[in-house]
């Protein structure tokens, strides 16, 4: 039973099944986000193929960092939740 008090919300009464479902949804969402992170890498490559002017290395590094961050978050969600 959820105690809905807008000044003081309490999730402690929730069924563990709810949290399992929440975990599944978060993991599915992160999987979709991983695809988006891959698209960013593809997009970066596409853009740097169009125009190279000297800063592309840094941009690619950040794109890959973002991908690693997404991967790390996915693994963290799997383990921690």
């Amino acid at each position, binding site marked *: 039973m959820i105690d809905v008090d*807008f*000044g*003081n*919300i*309490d*999730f402690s009464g929730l069924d563990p099944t709810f*949290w399992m479902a*929440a975990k599944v949804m*978060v993991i599915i969402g*992160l999987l979709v*986000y991983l695809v*988006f*992170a891959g*698209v*960013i890498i*593809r*997009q*970066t490559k*596409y*853009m740097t*193929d*169009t*125009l*190279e*002017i*000297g*800063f592309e290395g840094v*941009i690619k590094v*950040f*794109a890959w*960092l*973002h991908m690693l*961050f*997404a991967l*790390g*978050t996915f693994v*963290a*969600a799997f383990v*921690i*939740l």
Partner: protein
Amino acid sequence: MVDIFVSGKTNLKKKKKEQKVGTRGKAKHKIYKNTHNPIAAFNYYPDHVKFIAADSKERIILVLRRHPITNIRWGVVALFMLLAPFFLSFVEPVAALPTNFQLIAFLIWYMITLAFIIEEFLGWYFNVNIITDERIFDVDFVNLIYREITDANIDQIQDVTVQVGGVLRTMFNYGDVVIQTASEVPRIEFLAVPRPDDIARIIRELRIEEEQEKLEGRAR
């Protein structure tokens, strides 16, 4: 008549003046020295440029982006996004979540913030206008995987209009350069670019050079 004496200082002055003038390549525009900063918004004779639509013999004279001040809006949003977790973590219902969910929520928030910053920067960095000695280009990345490149020959340019309006644009010297052409795309716009008057001057000089080349039979 043989020179009896040539002052070294005169030669030095001449050399310094030549260094100030962009004398690389056949186009000489007595405005600026070469730009060595790859993330500059006004890149005059940039170093190490490769552009997919340019010919191998085409020399890239100017690479333009929107003035950096146009990035302030998303910069402020990004700053709020970076600082938001420190304030929202005390706000219900985030504070009521179990600790593990709060941690994952933080990670997801910063992941989205990083993606936002990367996307906005890519949109600024790669949406460029390029002026070569033969053509002008407008490169637009409309969305994640759609690219549009518009080009027009310099000798097809019919009219160049510079539009600078508003307090910010006047203070920071940026505006729009609207180019009317005789090509299939009748209008190419350089939006919110720095030093629009100098850009118009460069284009004018290039048009004059193209005319001269045509007269001399050197046009490519």
